[in-house]
C-alpha cells in the first residue's frame, strides 16, 4: 500500500515535470512555440519521462533487493544456536514466523524472545529502508528534472526522443509474450530437472504404478511413492477419446449444417447459442458432470445391470465432449466456408445432390483444415482441468474401461499442488514433470494443427 502511494506520488511528480518542461520550452523559444522543433507538449513529456523512468526503475530494483538484504541482516542477527543446522525449509519457516510477528499476526513462535527481538529489528529495518527508498527515488526524479530542464532548447528534438522511448516500451510489451513462454519452459524444466534427480526419467515415463501419496513421514528414507505416469497418460487419453467421440461428429455435422444448409435466420440464432455453450466456464461443466451426468450414467448402468463407477471416465469424457462441441464446430465452420464456391458449383453442375457434394467435394477439400481443428480440440481436451478434477477419479487406475474411474495428468497436478507444498519433495515436484509433459504434448499438437490450418488457408486465399 505504501509503495502504491509512492508510485502515485512519482506519477504526480512527473505530471508537474510535464508542465514545467512545457513552460520551459516555450520560454527558451522566446514565447514563440513555432520556433520549437517539436510541439511544447513533447518537451513536457520529455521532462516527465526523465523524472518517471529512472525513478520507477530504481523503485522496482529497490523493492526486489531490499527484502533480501533485510532478511539477511535479521537472520544473521539471530542467536547462532537458533539457526544452526536448519534445513532450507525450516529456515524459511522461521523467517516466516518472524515476518508474521512483525506484521502483528499470531504465530506459533510468538513467545520466543529471540523471535520477538528479530521481529522488532525487522520492522525497524523495513521502516528505515522505506524512508531511504523514498529519498533515493525522489532524488533520482529531481535529478532527472534538472537534467531535462538543462537540455531543453528550441533545437532539442523532443518528439524524436519521446517517440524512441515509447517505441522501446512497445517492443518490451511485445516481448512479454515471448518471456511468458520462456518462463513456462524454464520453470517447468527446472523443477522437473530436480524431480528427475530423485526419480529416474524412464521410471516416470514408462512406470505402470502411480501413487505419490504413500510417503508417511517426510524424513523417512525411501518413503517416496511410485511415480510411473503411464496410468495417468492412459486415463487422459481414454477421457480425451470419449470426448472426441462425442464432439467430433456432433461438432462437425453442426458445422456442415450451419455452413451449407442453414438459412441466415437459423444461423443468427444457432451461432450465438453455440457461443454461449463455448463461454460457459469449465467449472460449471465440472459441476454438471459430477452432479447430473455421472449419477445419470450410474443409474442407467444399474438399470441394465452394469456397474458404473460414480466417477466414471464416461461421464467426464462425455461432458468434456460437450464442452468441445462449439470449439470443433466454429473452427470447422470457418474452414468449410473457406472452400471456394466454384468447387461446389462444379459438383452441382454434374448433377450431384447437396449431400453428395458435401461428402465428395467440400469435406475432402476442407479436410486438412478439419484435421487441424480436431487436433486443436484434442489439445484442448488433454489440457482441460476442471471437468476431470470434479468428475474423474483421484486414484490411478490402469484401464481402458470407460465405466471405471480413471485419473488424468491434470487431475494429478491439481491434487499434488493444492494444499501444502514442499518444494523439496518428489511428490510436489512430480506435478511439474507432469506439467512439462502436458505442455510439450499440447504444444506439439498446436504447432502441427496451426501449421496445417495455415497451409490450408494459403491454398484458398
Amino acid at each position, binding site marked *: 500500500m505504501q509503495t502504491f502511494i509512492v508510485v502515485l506520488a512519482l506519477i504526480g511528480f512527473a505530471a508537474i515535470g510535464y508542465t514545467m518542461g512545457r513552460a520551459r520550452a516555450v520560454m527558451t523559444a522566446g514565447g514563440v512555440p513555432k520556433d520549437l522543433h517539436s510541439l511544447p507538449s513533447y518537451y513536457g513529456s520529455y521532462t516527465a519521462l526523465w523524472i518517471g523512468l529512472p525513478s520507477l526503475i530504481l523503485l522496482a530494483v529497490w523493492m526486489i533487493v531490499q527484502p533480501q538484504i533485510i532478511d539477511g541482516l535479521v537472520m544473521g542477527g539471530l542467536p547462532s544456536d537458533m539457526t544452526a543446522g536448519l534445513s532450507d525449509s525450516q529456515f524459511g519457516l522461521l523467517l516466516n514466523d518472524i515476518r508474521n510477528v512483525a506484521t502483528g499476526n499470531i504465530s506459533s513462535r510468538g513467545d520466543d524472545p529471540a523471535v520477538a527481538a528479530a521481529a522488532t529489528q525487522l520492522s525497524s529495518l523495513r521502516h528505515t529502508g522505506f524512508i531511504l527508498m523514498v529519498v533515493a527515488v525522489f532524488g533520482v526524479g529531481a535529478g532527472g528534472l534538472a537534467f531535462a530542464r538543462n537540455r531543453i532548447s528550441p533545437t532539442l528534438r523532443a*518528439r524524436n526522443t519521446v517517440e524512441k522511448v515509447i517505441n522501446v516500451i*512497445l517492443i518490451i*510489451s*511485445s*516481448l*512479454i*509474450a*515471448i518471456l511468458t*513462454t520462456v518462463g*513456462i519452459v524454464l*520453470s*517447468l524444466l*527446472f523443477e522437473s530437472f530436480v524431480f528427475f534427480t530423485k526419480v529416474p526419467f524412464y521410471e516416470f515415463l514408462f512406470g505402470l504404478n502411480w501413487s505419490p501419496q504413500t510417503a508417511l513421514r517426510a524424513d523417512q528414507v525411501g518413503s517416496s511413492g511410485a511415480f510411473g505416469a503411464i496410468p495417468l497418460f492412459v486415463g487422459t487419453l481414454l477421457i480425451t477419446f470419449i470426448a472426441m467421440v462425442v464432439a467430433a*461428429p456432433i461438432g*462437425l*455435422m453442426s458445422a456442415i*449444417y*450451419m455452413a*451449407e*444448409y*442453414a438459412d441466415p435466420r437459423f444461423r443468427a440464432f444457432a451461432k450465438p*447459442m*453455440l*457461443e454461449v455453450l463455448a*463461454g*460457459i*466456464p469449465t*467449472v*460449471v461443466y465440472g*459441476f454438471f458432470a459430477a*452432479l447430473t451426468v455421472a449419477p445419470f450414467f450410474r443409474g442407467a448402468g444399474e438399470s441394465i445391470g452394469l456397474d458404473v463407477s460414480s466417477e466414471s471416465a464416461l461421464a467426464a469424457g462425455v461432458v468434456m465432449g460437450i464442452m468441445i*462441441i462449439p470449439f470443433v464446430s466454429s473452427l470447422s465452420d470457418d474452414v468449410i466456408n473457406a472452400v471456394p464456391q466454384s468447387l461446389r458449383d462444379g459438383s452441382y453442375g454434374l448433377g450431384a*445432390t447437396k*449431400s*453428395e457434394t458435401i*461428402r465428395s467435394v467440400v469435406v475432402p477439400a476442407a479436410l486438412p483444415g478439419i484435421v487441424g481443428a480436431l487436433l486443436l480440440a484434442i*489439445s*484442448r481436451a*488433454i*489440457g*482441460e*482441468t476442471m471437468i476431470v*478434477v*470434479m468428475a474423474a477419479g483421484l486414484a490411478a487406475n490402469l484401464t481402458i474401461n470407460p465405466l471405471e474411474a480413471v485419473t488424468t495428468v*491434470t487431475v494429478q*497436478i*491439481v491434487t499434488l*499442488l*493444492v494444499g501444502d507444498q514442499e*518444494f523439496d519433495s518428489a511428490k510436489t515436484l512430480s*506435478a*511439474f514433470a507432469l*506439467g512439462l509433459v*502436458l*505442455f510439450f504434448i*499440447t*504444444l506439439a499438437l*498446436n*504447432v502441427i494443427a*496451426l501449421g496445417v490450418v495455415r497451409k490450408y488457408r494459403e491454398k484458398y486465399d
Partner: protein
Amino acid sequence: MTDTTSSPQGESAGPARRPLTISPHLAKRYARERLFRTLGLASVATAGLILLVLVGSIVSKGYSAFWLHHVDLTIEFSVDELNPDGGPIEMETLQKANYLGLVRDALKREFPDAASDRRERRKLYGLVSPNADIMLRNMVLNDPSLVGTTQTVSFKMSDDMDTFAKGFIDRDLPESDRRVTDAEIKWHDHFEAEGRVHVAFNIDFFTKGDSREPEEAGIYGALIGSILTLTVTLLVSFPVGVMAAVYLEEFAPKNRFTDLIEVNINNLAAVPSIVFGLLGLAVFLNFFGLPRSAPLAGGLVLALMTLPTIIIASRSALKAVPPSIREAALGLGASPLQVVTHHVLPLAMPGILTGTIIGMAQALGETAPLLMIGMVAFIVDVPQGFTDPATVLPVQVYIWADSPERAFVEKTSAAIMVLLGFLVLMNAIAVLLRKRFERRW
C-alpha cells in the same frame, strides 16, 4: 448433364429423349440427402438441448438458494444473564454474555419434553443456525434497552431444516434415509402450524463471505475477490496487449524475429490454463515471493493468459483500419506514433474493447490456474486489498461443489447462476459494442 450424343436408332428423325422419370436409384439418393440433412439439424439441436438441460439443471437446483426459512422464537433477554450484578448496564458484560444460552432456553421452553434426552436436545438446539447467538448479541449491543424484556425474534433455520422446509426432503421416507429426524419434522410442523415459519430473501448470500454453515455462506467475498483479481488482470493485460499489438501491426519490421513472436502468441493462446498456474506458482510465488492466495498473483497469472486473446483481437481491429487513413495522416506530416495515437487506435478501439471484454469474461470463468496459487483456501473474510487472501467466484463454486451438505448444492448452483449472469452481461456488452461501432469502409 447435357446429353448431346444420342443414338440414331429409333424411328423419329430427331434425337431420342431420355424420359425424366425418377428412377429408384434417384429416390435412394434423395433419401440419403434427407438423412444427411436431418443428421446435421439433429447435431445442432443436440447442442441446443444440452444447453437447455445444463442451464435447466442449474437453475432448478439453484433458484431456491435465494431465500431462506426463518422461525420466530420468543427470547427472554434475562437480566440474570445480561446484567447479573445489577446497576447500570455495562457494554463489556453485554459483549461476553452467553447468548447461545438465551436461544437454547427459548427452544427448551418451547419443547420441554425434548430437553431430557441428550441427543435429542442437541438436535433441538440445531434447529436454528449456529450463528444465532452473534445475531442476538448484535441486537442487544445496538439496543441495550432490550435487557429484561421478552421479544419475538426471527432466526434463520439451520441448513437441513431449511432444506426440509423448502420441500426437498420427502417426509414419507423412512427416518434412516433422510437427513431430518422424525422429531425435527414434528418441531417444524409445530412452528408451521402456529404460523411462525416464514420465508425471507437470503440477503446474506450477497453480502457475506464463505462459511462452513450453508445458511451463513455468501458469495460476496468471492465476488470482491473476482473484482480485485480481474482489476489486476485488466490493468496489466490491456495496456501490454494493446501496445504489443500496436508494435506488431504498425511498427515491427517483417523479419524472423517478429514471425517468432507471432507464432509464439498463437501457441500461447492454446496452452492449457493449468500450465499458466504452474508458471504462476514457480515464478510469481516462489521466485518473486508474491503472497499466496492473493488477487495480485492470481490477476497476474490471468493477465498472462488473457494477453494472447487481447493481442490477437487488437491486431485484427488495427488491421481493419484502412491504410488510406494512415497515408493521409503521414502525408500531413504526422509522425508514425501520432498516426497511431490520433487516428488508428481510436478507430480500432471498439474492436479492441470487444476483444478485451471477451478476454475478461474468459478470465472471470477461469479456475484451474488459480487453484495452483492457493486461491482455493477457505476464506471467511472479505478481501480488503490486492494482497489479502481471497478466492474468486468460479473457485467458490468449486469449493462448494466439493462440500457434502445438501444445502451447498443449492448454493453452488446459485453461485453459478450469478457467475453466468456476469458472463452474459459482459458478452452482451461486447456484442452491443460490436454492433454499435461496426463500421464498413
